[in-house]
């Protein structure tokens, strides 16, 4: 199934490179990718479509992987970084770094990572009371993200020169106008932190059975938690510093992956692939399939919200508690 998902992702990637406002034959796309100068295709494919597609895939992989790690670790589909406020925190930090501190490039990413970790610790600390209950964590996260969102709105309103598209990036997420150079920090984070998460895949699987059971199986629960939180938050923050908090990708990826591959085996890699497909397809829909051009976050937000409602309704019907 993983191979199938990866093939599908590769096919999507190829389609987004070939098909935009106009069609570019596969041969031309190939030659552009090899670095040759092709009249009429080098700019469209090399400058417009390729950076966008690469960033969409990298951001999607990061969001999907980090979201799945959080959901598995906390054993709650709602405990994804975009619902509990970590994405908003990273986005607020990125906006602050760019607008107020006038930073750019890797400094923004570093700032976002530090702030993301800070917000994660804040949420964890605030919801701590005789242990962290899932309910309290999620509600506290909703409160924190409301505050972060209004901070973003405030900072953007002070920077009057920003256009609507750019403001949308920090509110809902967008891969509009990205450059290929911006993909390097993402790639590095994906290799380093993503690799770190994958080495913890077995421990995460054990955590699914409960903290006590995991400890009995020989997992160092405390250390696994710290590693997972740091790695996942760093990935989310670095991706967010470039694309903004693309709504609900982290939240949606793991449940979709679970539907596709079943719950046997690790969900991490399938979730990452699903995340990449979501962002890539969402961006493509937002650009070409809808009557007007929308940032990818609007598309995934409109997709994710009904799923969240469905989740609430379904859990209610089966009588479980959220």
């Amino acid at each position, binding site marked *: 199934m993983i191979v199938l998902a990866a093939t599908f992702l590769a096919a999507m990637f190829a389609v987004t490179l070939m098909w935009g406002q106009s069609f570019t034959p596969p041969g031309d796309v190939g030659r552009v990718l090899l670095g040759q100068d092709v009249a009429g295709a080098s700019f469209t494919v090399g400058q417009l479509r390729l950076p966008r597609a690469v960033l969409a895939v990298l951001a999607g992989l990061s969001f999907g992987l980090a979201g799945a790690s959080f959901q598995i670790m906390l054993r709650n589909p*709602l405990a994804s970084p975009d*619902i509990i406020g970590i994405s908003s925190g990273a986005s607020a930090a990125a906006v602050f770094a760019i607008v107020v501190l006038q930073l750019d490039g890797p400094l923004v990413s570093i700032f976002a990572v530090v702030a993301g970790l800070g917000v994660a610790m804040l949420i964890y600390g*605030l*919801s701590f*009371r005789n242990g962290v209950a899932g*309910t*309290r964590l*999620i*509600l*506290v996260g*909703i*409160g*924190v993200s*409301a*505050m972060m*969102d*209004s*901070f973003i*709105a*405030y900072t953007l*309103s*002070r920077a009057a020169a920003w256009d*609507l598209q750019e403001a*949308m990036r920090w*509110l*809902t997420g967008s891969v509009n106008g990205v450059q290929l150079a911006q993909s390097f920090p993402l790639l590095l984070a994906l290799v380093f932190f993503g690799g770190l998460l994958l080495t913890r895949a077995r421990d995460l699987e054990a955590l699914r059975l409960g903290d006590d059971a995991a400890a009995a199986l020989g997992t160092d629960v405390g250390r696994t938690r710290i590693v997972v939180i740091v790695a996942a938050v760093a990935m989310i923050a670095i991706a967010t510093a470039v694309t903004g908090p693309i*709504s*609900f990708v982290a939240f949606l990826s793991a449940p979709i992956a679970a539907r596709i591959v079943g719950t046997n085996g690790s969900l991490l890699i399938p979730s990452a692939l699903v995340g990449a497909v979501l962002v890539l397809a969402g961006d493509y829909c937002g650009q070409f399939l*809808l*009557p*007007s*051009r*929308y*940032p990818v*976050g*609007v*598309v995934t*937000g*409109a997709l*994710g*919200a*009904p799923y*969240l*409602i469905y989740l*609430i*309704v379904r*859990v*209610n*019907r089966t*009588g479980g*508690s*959220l």
Partner: protein
Amino acid sequence: MTAESVTSLGRASFAERSNRIRTIWLVAVVAALVMFCALSVAIGTREVGWPEIVAALGGRVDSVDQAAVAARIPRTILALLAGAALGLSGAIMQGVTRNPLADPGILGVNMGASLAVVVGVAWFNIVSAQAYIWVAILGAAASAIFVYTIGSLGRGGATPLKLALAGTATSVAFSSLVIAVVLSRNDISGGIRSWQVGGVGGATFDRMSHVLPFLAAGFAISLFSARKLNSLALGDDMAAGLGERVALARAIAALGAILLCGAITAICGPIGFVGLIVPHLCRLLVGVDHRWLLPFSALIGAGLLLAADVVGRIIARPSELDVGIVTAFIGAPFFIWIVRRQRVREL
């Protein structure tokens, strides 16, 4: 003296004392309100001396300073009205749903009103202020009913978590749709974007006059519901036993709350968290009797919003901070505090 008379005596003296405390609080709150009004007229981006302020209050607009002060008067009144309406509607919503996190913002009411207005402006060409308000109220009502229905499905009814999640999901969906509509219409995006952050700046008596009938009806219905909300607070079965028609009482009270917050959202844009904080504060001050709680929520809501507006004008000089942002910064930590309290599940 029998044991029974002792307890009844104790109860009487307790009720009397707490009534005295309530009266003291009432006086204090009204005094604070008057002070905030004075501050709101006196403080702004432009420094104005007292003689000029007094002259402007007397109706003279001869100098720039006096004109600046004259512009602050409708703003102050709108802040008072908006705060009172939001505080009161929050108290009603918490009473109707018996849920400590019920609030126009969290129930998705503000986003519902926003979406309705945006769709109305973009596709149905609504231009008149009157139509604006009707559309906002309809959107508010639809989304409140939707969120509450989703949140209360299944066992356990509308727990705070389910309600908050249903509200969040709906708000995100609606805001995605709002963006989708706005992005495709560059001609209207500027006006709508400034409206999306709640604020009371730029208020005029003319604009306010359009919502006054709605607000008046909302205030009347809401305050009239106090006794019914007291019965509902005992639980549905008990309220029915007392001869209350539970569903009808709920519907009427909710109608009042939606009229209030829908009308305010139509002219101010979404202002979050006032409806959440104020009733909790008021319960600390005057207890849970809705006959006291509702008027107090209106008064303290007015004071809070006015204070937030003044703060927004001071801290961001030389420009100003929209009041919706200030209330979010005060309100979100308060929300977290409520969540952290142990008995978050029941009210």
